[in-house]
């Protein structure tokens, strides 16, 4: 049993490590090409992220958003669906949370206000995702096309709502919420002063736990994974694959939507156009690296958040786009390395056994 566990751990961790090594080598070349020495730049990258409380707090903040979009995409993939719409689902979720937070009286008990805002965010994200879900199960429209197109529509609609009706003067954001605040981590640990990390991270961790239990311990998760692995076998056994897809897509959208609270309830306390730009797409990479496992996604979100925050830290020496390039290289290296590393691992194990 422990052998199997070790094998699984190797398969999960080694590809990521190797991909990171490849990325570091490529990064070296890029940094050298800018006339800098890689060593100090990497040291700065680490010091600017995990090396001080502020940087670490920023990493945690960014990781929280990515964890939500990553988990959203992971659950879709578990059911055999590719949700490219997390980008607009998280925006819709953040918007709904802000509207509810503005509408609620300031005297609303904190916990109730937060729960209502989360509920609204989930409902909005799930609602946006319900459109591709219905179009797929009723008409056979491919969810990739529909979610991509819906990104344009939903984001443009939100942009119009803000610019035409809801924005504060001289800005592109709504009024501040009156209830539903999630405290920043600095309220508990003053060292985090100034960092955006807030209690949304707890919501992300609880979501990961719940999602893991759902996927691997519940009947619904069993049916969802069966439908994702082999839809024809699931259908044969009496599982309604269309119902599973419906549920999974809406759940995926809801999780992405809840991701909006990180900014709205925990950081700026209003909805601003474009607050999570790119999080939905980067979430695809996070799900890939996290192997569609909720805890794997948490770790992958930390990795990508580190690279993203690290880009800011090294900006003085090399363009911060280097960090973006590094992220891209990690993704490419992982998609190439995962099958190869697993093959080598298996071959190695065979030799040991023989």
């Amino acid at each position, binding site marked *: 049993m422990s052998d199997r566990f070790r094998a699984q751990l190797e398969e999960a961790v080694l590809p990521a490590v190797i991909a990171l090594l490849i990325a570091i080598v490529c990064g070296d070349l890029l940094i050298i090409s800018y006339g800098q020495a890689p060593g100090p730049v990497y040291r700065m990258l680490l010091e600017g992220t995990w090396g001080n409380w502020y940087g670490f707090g920023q990493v945690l903040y960014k990781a929280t958003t990515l964890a939500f979009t990553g988990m959203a995409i992971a659950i879709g993939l578990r059911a055999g669906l590719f949700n490219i719409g997390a980008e607009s689902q998280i925006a819709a979720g953040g918007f709904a949370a802000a509207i509810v937070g503005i509408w609620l009286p300031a005297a609303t008990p904190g916990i109730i206000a937060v729960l209502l805002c989360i509920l609204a965010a989930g409902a909005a994200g799930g609602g946006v995702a319900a459109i591709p879900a219905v179009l797929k199960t009723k008409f056979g429209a491919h969810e990739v096309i529909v979610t991509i197109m819906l990104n344009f529509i939903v984001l443009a609609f939100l942009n119009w709502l803000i610019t035409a009706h809801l924005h504060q003067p001289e800005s592109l954001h709504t009024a501040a919420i009156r209830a539903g605040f999630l405290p920043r981590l600095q309220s508990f640990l003053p060292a985090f002063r100034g960092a955006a990390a807030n209690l949304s991270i707890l919501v992300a961790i609880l979501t990961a736990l719940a999602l893991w239990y759902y996927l691997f*311990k519940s009947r619904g998760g069993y049916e969802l994974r069966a439908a994702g692995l082999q839809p024809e076998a699931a*259908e*044969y056994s009496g599982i309604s694959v269309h119902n599973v897809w419906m549920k999974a897509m809406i759940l995926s959208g809801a999780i992405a939507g809840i991701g909006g609270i990180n900014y709205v309830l925990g950081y700026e306390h209003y909805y601003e156009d474009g607050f999570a730009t790119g999080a939905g797409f980067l979430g695809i990479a996070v799900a890939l690296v996290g192997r569609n496992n909720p805890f794997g996604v948490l770790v992958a979100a930390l990795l990508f958040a580190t690279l993203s925050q690290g880009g800011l830290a090294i900006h003085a020496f090399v363009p911060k786009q280097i960090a973006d390039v590094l992220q891209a290289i990690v993704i490419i290296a992982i998609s190439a390395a995962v099958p190869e590393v697993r093959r080598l691992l298996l071959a190695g194990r065979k030799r040991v056994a023989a």
Partner: protein
Amino acid sequence: MTNPAITPAIRMTGIEKSFGPVQANRGASLEVMPGEIHALVGENGAGKSTLMKILGGLLSPDAGKMEVNGRDVTGWTTPDAIKAGIGIVHQHFMLVPTLTVAENIVLGMEPTKAGMFDGDRANAEVEKLTRETGLVIDPKRKVSDLSVGEAQRVEILKVLFRGAKILILDEPTAVLSPPEVKELWNVMRKMRDNGGTIVLITHRLDEVMDLTDVITVMRAGRTVGRLVTKDTTPSEIAKEMVGRDVALSAREKRNAAAAHGSAAPRSAGLELRNVVVTDPVRGRVVDNVSFSLAPGEILGIAGVEGNGQTELVEAIAGLRKVESGSIWIDGKDVTNLDVAHRREAGLTHIPEDRHRRGLVLDYTVANNLVLGVQNRFSLSGWLNDRKIGDYAAKQVAAYDIRPPIAAAYARGFSGGNQQKIVLAREMGHGFSVLLASQPTRGVDVGAIEFIHAQLLAARDEGKAILLVSAELNEVMALSDRIAVMYRGQFAAVMDADTATTEQLGEYMIGAKKEGVA
């Protein structure tokens, strides 16, 4: 038999090959003389395919020695093997459906004219090859329009086109109708008479007796016997294969059971009334089929594949919509119910394709054993892992699933053991009607015997069983009544005791038609 004056075409000795903890070959050997049709038989997981993959250069052996035409070729690669004239016809077709026959055959070594593909020359070359070999087929036809028998001819032509002198066929007849099998035999005999060497992997002992010169028997990775066909009997081969005596005919047991007078209660079962199923491309694939199947009865459906059997079974299972007509289980109209509700009504189903439908290959055995009945193993939405584990352990033992590891993934099991997983699930709980579609396809003699015994036992317990099989022998051995399906209709329904192979064969190819509704 071995004449030292002649160099064997193939000689493999002491071959060892393991995959992790599984030792697929442990001292396997094979010696095939040129110009001989050689049978390689053994149970699923006996190591036949591994041995042939080693010969074809797809795998390299851990130990042992192999020679082809006297040359030491141990551990060679696929291109080497092709160059040396070894051609493997795989069990699963590897053809491009949108290309023509000729295009498929020349794929990878296309004739060109001024750098462009020369279709005329390809057609001419392929046509010449079909004339020489007797494998008749129009080179210009699209592969997607071919029947399975024709597709297989293309596979054989493909390896012959590459100059194969030693032909290895992995269960070539699993998908063929009796006339097609006969034709294939003629082609193979002709090839042998022209000096070709053929190794035939098969489960069917009648084929072995009919066609081959020498038989190599494998069991658990070892070569356990080398028999000369004309000096042996099917039961001797079967005994070598499983290492014990095997009753080859399930019918004997059936008759014995019938003599005990196990009369099942009659009232329910399965009934179809004027069922029509249409396919957007092929039209009426099931054309006005009616029958009633009583508890304690096995109705066998014979027929060449592709005559509507698959669609009929899927319609009964709830996987395919019926155009008109009705389906009744235990007196209840289930025509408009979904799969889950039909299962609740007492239906259970062994699907024809265990890899596509029967198993979630990346689920464990335990998880596969509760597929479709997962709500019986969960409490308010949560899976009861302990209950699943206990049940799985019980079923793994009861159905002799090997290796007996319920936590292992279904993908890693041999065909026969995968089928036992399906059987353990579908027959492991209460049901009244069983759809058994190709229940023994691609499984070994030992497992066939086991599966047949299970089906007969279920019948004797009063279950109604609809058996669909491409194996005429199987249909004849198990059924009480036999229906022949031809072009979506029941061409004939007859009593199994009086039916003969010739009779059924005529209905199967549409040479004869009975006026049954």
